[in-house]
């Protein structure tokens, strides 16, 4: 039987506030264990949580940037569960009145546009971290992360493949970065996804039983865990078995998922209104003010790149997929005035380099101004685009200014017509057969002659002048 996969995602993003959601402890990543803690975030009886106003602002920003309706009246609720990463024995989350609802974002996979619905965005606090104690064989608890603010973004079950799920998270990550509410560092866990997945026979309206694979913290893990879970459920269904509704974990090293023990997933959260925290009421003015001050979003930048800078849709889409990349593009374009050239360098070389070095676009070994300098050297004829590739590699390796590399390596382009003519005369005289071939209509012979001249000039000949002089000579 042919099956259709149905995927919905819950994405947790840590908000980039300075302090925790309910107390003034720092949210900084990587502090010594239990040094960013106080009675509130360690769950001491009687400690009173007070909501950080930035958390509300950031969640509303995220909601507006994803087309959500913002609740005028919202509240927080206790979600009760007993686990040592949550010393209060409840998480403070939002149950029936989330801050944001009914949004959507558009994704593009293989050229196909699709809209993914967003059910809701709510605020909640993160849990602490458990670690295995090698010394005693027990478990150690670090509560630095307990109380770091999160937004949970719940999608509709609108995705039908791993590629769509990855495209959705990429798009969402881009938006959150653009509006500056989360640094979205997946390797540090500040953006992570839970995947809800079920299969149903193609054509069936009814959803199958779903499983939830928790805490995926890379695009690769999202894609691989989905492929794994599709194959697993398919096998279960095809052998006449039953898919159980269960919570699963993904082991990225082994490349396999497994069900959590039933005890760990006793879902009975007994939500009730958090009595320590008063309701949130948002005025029209407040929401309007945030909406007016939202930074430019990827979609709008993309449209601008296409309409004002004349870039193709595909290129504009890639450039705006990451805020850092888009900022890099804009800074380089501002410095050299040649958007098309900057875009080409990014599409061909910079994306490759970032991937090879494994760095974000704000941590490249060269600056946008240095790239602009390289483009200016090509545009004013100082170097050829072929030599520019060599200079670029040197910029990657040494972070030196392109002007300095060109000077040190003697790479300045030869644009002196008499010097080029001398080479052309020599090469043409030495290759009578190619000249005859060209005159007999074989255009390839021209390319050969140009190549020989370029070789003679160690790639430094100005290609336009060279072409012109060879053609003149042959006619």
């Amino acid at each position, binding site marked *: 039987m042919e099956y259709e996969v149905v995927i919905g995602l819950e994405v947790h993003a840590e908000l980039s506030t300075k302090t925790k959601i309910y107390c*003034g402890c720092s949210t900084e990543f990587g502090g010594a264990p239990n040094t960013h803690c106080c009675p509130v975030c360690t769950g001491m009886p009687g400690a009173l949580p007070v909501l950080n*106003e930035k958390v509300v602002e950031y969640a509303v920003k995220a909601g507006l940037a994803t087309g959500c309706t913002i609740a005028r009246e919202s509240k927080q609720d206790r979600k009760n569960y007993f686990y040592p990463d949550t010393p209060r024995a409840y998480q403070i989350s939002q149950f029936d009145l989330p801050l944001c609802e009914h949004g959507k974002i558009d994704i593009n996979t293989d050229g196909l546009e699709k809209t993914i619905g967003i059910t809701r965005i709510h605020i909640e606090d993160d849990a602490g971290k458990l670690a295995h104690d090698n010394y005693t064989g027990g478990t150690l608890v670090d509560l630095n992360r307990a109380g770091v603010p999160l937004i949970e973004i719940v999608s509709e079950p609108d995705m039908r493949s791993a590629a769509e799920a990855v495209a959705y998270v990429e798009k969402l990550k881009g938006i959150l970065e653009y509006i500056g509410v989360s640094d979205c560092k997946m390797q540090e866990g500040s953006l992570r996804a839970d995947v809800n997945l079920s299969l149903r026979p193609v054509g069936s309206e009814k959803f199958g039983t779903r499983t939830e694979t928790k805490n995926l913290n890379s695009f690769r893990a999202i894609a691989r865990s989905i492929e794994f879970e599709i194959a697993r459920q398919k096998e279960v269904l095809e052998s006449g078995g039953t898919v159980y509704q269960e919570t699963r974990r993904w082991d990225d090293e082994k490349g396999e998922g497994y069900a959590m023990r039933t005890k760990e997933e006793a879902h009975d959260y*007994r939500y009730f209104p958090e009595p320590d925290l008063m309701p949130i009421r948002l005025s029209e003015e407040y929401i309007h003010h945030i909406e007016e001050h939202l930074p430019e979003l990827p979609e709008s930048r993309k449209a601008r790149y296409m309409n004002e800078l004349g870039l193709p849709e595909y290129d504009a889409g890639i450039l705006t997929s990451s805020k850092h990349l888009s900022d890099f593009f804009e800074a380089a374009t501002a410095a050299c005035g040649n958007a098309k050239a900057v875009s080409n360098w990014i599409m061909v070389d910079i994306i490759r380099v970032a991937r090879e070095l494994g760095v974000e676009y704000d941590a490249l070994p060269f600056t946008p101004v240095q790239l602009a300098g390289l483009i200016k050297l090509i545009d004013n004829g100082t170097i050829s685009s072929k030599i520019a590739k060599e200079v670029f590699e040197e910029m990657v390796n040494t972070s030196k200014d392109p002007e300095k590399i060109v000077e040190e390596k003697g790479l300045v382009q030869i644009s002196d017509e008499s010097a080029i003519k001398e080479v052309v005369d020599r090469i043409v005289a030495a290759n009578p057969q190619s000249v005859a071939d060209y005159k007999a209509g074989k255009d390839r012979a021209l390319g050969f002659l140009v190549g020989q001249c370029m070789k003679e000039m160690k790639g430094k000949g100005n290609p336009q002048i060279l072409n012109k002089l060879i053609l003149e000579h042959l006619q």
Partner: protein
Amino acid sequence: MISKEEIKHIADLSMLNLSEAEIEKYTENMKDIVEFANSINSLDTDGVTESAFALDSYNVFRKDEIKESFDRDLLLSNAPSSNGEAYSLPSMTV
């Protein structure tokens, strides 16, 4: 209206091992509590807007400003066991 099964379920969720005698006792206790709370149902609430709160207070916020955290030794001194840096527990699934 409160069954022994419900008490067992709640105990399980909190990872408490209760003896049969304790389950009997807590079932009786819980009945009293729920009956007491149920007395609120005798109030006439027609025309009263539904609310989760008794006070007419809202938007109690604080600024996003860092305050000094607590002394770690002091925090850890509340726990039955620690290694000087972190709370120490019997082995859990991590």
